Each structure stands twice: as C-alpha cells, then as structure tokens.
C-alpha cells in the first residue's frame, strides 16, 4: 500500500536539486526528515491540508535510507523514478559513459520476469 509514498519520495527528491544533493550526502537523515515533514504534504495543496495516514514500511524505509535500488526495484518502486534519481546522484562517480547505468543494470541481473508489479 505504501508504494505510493516511496514513489512520492523519489518524485519530489528527483525534481529538486537541493533535495537531490541532500539525499546523496545523507540518505538516512533525509529519509527520516522527509517522512516526518514532507510525506503528508499533498502536492498542489497548502500545508494545512496535509494527509495523515501515509508512512513507509520498514523495508521501504531501509531501502531508501541505504540507497538500495535493487531492493526498491523488488518492492515495486517505479523504475523510471529510481533510475533518473540515481543518475542525478551517482553518474558523476563513474568515468565511463553509461558506467553508472550499466552498473545499475548489473546489480539487477538476477531479476527475472515477471518483474514486480509497479501499480500503486
């Protein structure tokens, strides 16, 4: 049920340069702050209209807090969101063109179809 919230985290962090860098440098702290302060914000609504019932599962929180894209894939996070955020955070760490993307794929090489359902 909380795949929606995982995707909401990836979506909001990917779109905001400052948040992207914060998540790169301090994943656990950023996830804890985001869940406390941001998870309830309904996009396009003012802050006083926050939702009240959303939270991560322990597995989701751990996967996000450890930058574990394999676990996120297996949990059914939307792969496009995860990939684009990972490109923003980690492509700079690889010298070869597409090195990050190929490393990303290699770490998922054990996955067979059908892939996890990404429906939220």
């Amino acid at each position: 049920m909380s795949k929606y919230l995982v995707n909401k985290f990836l979506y909001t962090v990917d779109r905001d340069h400052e948040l992207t860098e914060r998540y790169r440098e301090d994943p656990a702290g950023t996830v804890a702050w985001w869940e406390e302060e941001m998870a309830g914000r309904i996009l396009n609504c003012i802050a006083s209209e926050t939702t009240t019932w959303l939270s991560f599962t322990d597995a989701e929180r751990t996967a996000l807090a450890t930058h574990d894209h394999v676990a996120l894939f297996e949990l059914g996070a939307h792969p496009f969101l995860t990939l684009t955020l990972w490109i923003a955070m980690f492509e700079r760490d690889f010298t070869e063109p597409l090195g990050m993307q190929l490393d990303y794929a290699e770490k998922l090489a054990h996955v067979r179809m059908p892939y996890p359902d990404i429906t939220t």
Partner: protein
Amino acid sequence: MADLVAVLATTHHPFYYRTSQLPPDQAPPFAAEWISKIATYRETLTRARPDVLVMVGSDHFHQLWLDNMPQFLVGKAPMYDANWENEIREFGMPKLLLRGDEELSAYMLREGLDKGFDLAFSNELRIDHSITCPILTVRPDADLPIVPIYTNIFAPPLPRPERFVQLGRTIREIIESWPSHLRVAVIGSGHLSLELGGPRQFGPTGPDPEFDARAVEWISNGDIDGVLEHVTLDSLHGPGNATHGFMDFMLMMGVAGYQKADHADSLSLFHTMEAYFTWYPNPHLIDAPSTPGGRA
C-alpha cells in the same frame, strides 16, 4: 474544413539534441548518420507546410502524478513552457516557450468528449521531452502553434492498446471536421522496445530487436490489425519494462489509418531502436501552394 497534411510518428531520444551539438571530433561514431536521418525526416514535415501541430506525447512524471493521473489529457493554453530542470540536468536540453492553438484545443476537447473520450485538460501544462524532442528534430525553429495531447503510458493501470488506436482515429476525425482553413500535422512520439531502471537497460541494442523489427513492419505497412492481434497490455512487458510507450505509436497508426508510410526509417543505437515514419493523408496537398491566410 482543416487539411490533415502530415502524420509523423517518431521515437524521442533525449540525447539527440546534445549529440547533434557536439563538434565532429567529440561526437560518437553514430552521430553523423543520426543527424543525416533526422535532416531527411525533418524535410518530410517541411514539405507539408503545416500551420499548426497536434503533438502527442507522454509526461514522464514531471507534472502529471499519481495523486491525479489522467489517461488522456489535452493542453488548452495560449503558451507552453517546456523542458524540466531534471531533463536539462540529465540531457542538456534547452528551455523552450511554445505557442498554443487554443481554438483547436477547445474543439478537440468538445468533440473528443462527445465522441466518447473523457479527456482531461490543463490550462497550465509544462511540456517535457516527449514533445520537445520532436520539436527539436523536425521543427527546430519552434515557430508553429501546438495542441499537446498527453497519454498515460507510464503509471498502471493503463488504457489498453485498442483505446490508443481508437483515440488516434478520433483525433483524425476531429481535425478533419474542424471548421478551419488551416493545415494540420499530427506528430506523435513513443518507444519501440525499451527498458529503463531494470536489468536489461542500456545494452548494445534495444532489449528486444525482434520486437523492434516487427514493430517497424507493422507501422510502415499501416498494419493496424496485425499489431492489435499481437500486442496487448500484458505482452508489452516482454520487450522491456518501458515498452508501453509503443502504444503512442499505435495511437499514431490510428491517426494514419490503413496506409503505408510515405517515409519509414530507423536506426539502431546502443540501447534502443530509433524509428521515424511519415504519412501524407492527402498527397495532392504536398508541395502545393501555401494556404491563403495561413498562420505559419
């Protein structure tokens, strides 16, 4: 009535713009062929001398989101800002400002609703690379007004492929009944086989070259029945986890109808098959004198 002068169906590779800007000594080995194919493809639109462009694409979770996801949406604004910060960051794309055609947008919405499509609309749509890539390749001056149409190929549950074909047919009917003297081109972009964020991404070819070859045949031949026989919502997971973008090609086949493409081309790149198709529904209008009073 308006004239439907061209139908273009294309992939939208976000790396093309940056690749085409590189000096020859820094460009990858495939760049020259890619640029040459794009130049030829651009001419297929130029020849049709359109006044307005209906642009079919899909938001990549830039503006449309899981809190309120439309399946089909028509932009209805006088202007459209385009390209997002994270696209500029990852693809080096330029920001753009595109003019809208509110009259055709309003007509598309009214007629679409009456023809059985509960279309969403937006008065403040910011366009992403699914539409700006075709602009940058086939109309780089970005000088024509547009009507953007977004489809959901991204966030399950998705409409089935048949629905995309039906929408394409309906878009054509609407354009051909639009009480206007303008020349309209429809340009839609999608994918062939594609994997993003999964184990098969960024391989030496697209994840399923066999699917790509069949897809090019289906589209080139206007084989709507063949594609509907072989492609389902479930089957599209097979060629790659982002291959549902192929349904935008199926929508464009609906616009073009049972007609062989007048131009069909493709290019295998390191992780995807690029593909470009053009139909001229009314060949007698191509290379004819300009529309009197046209706005181009």
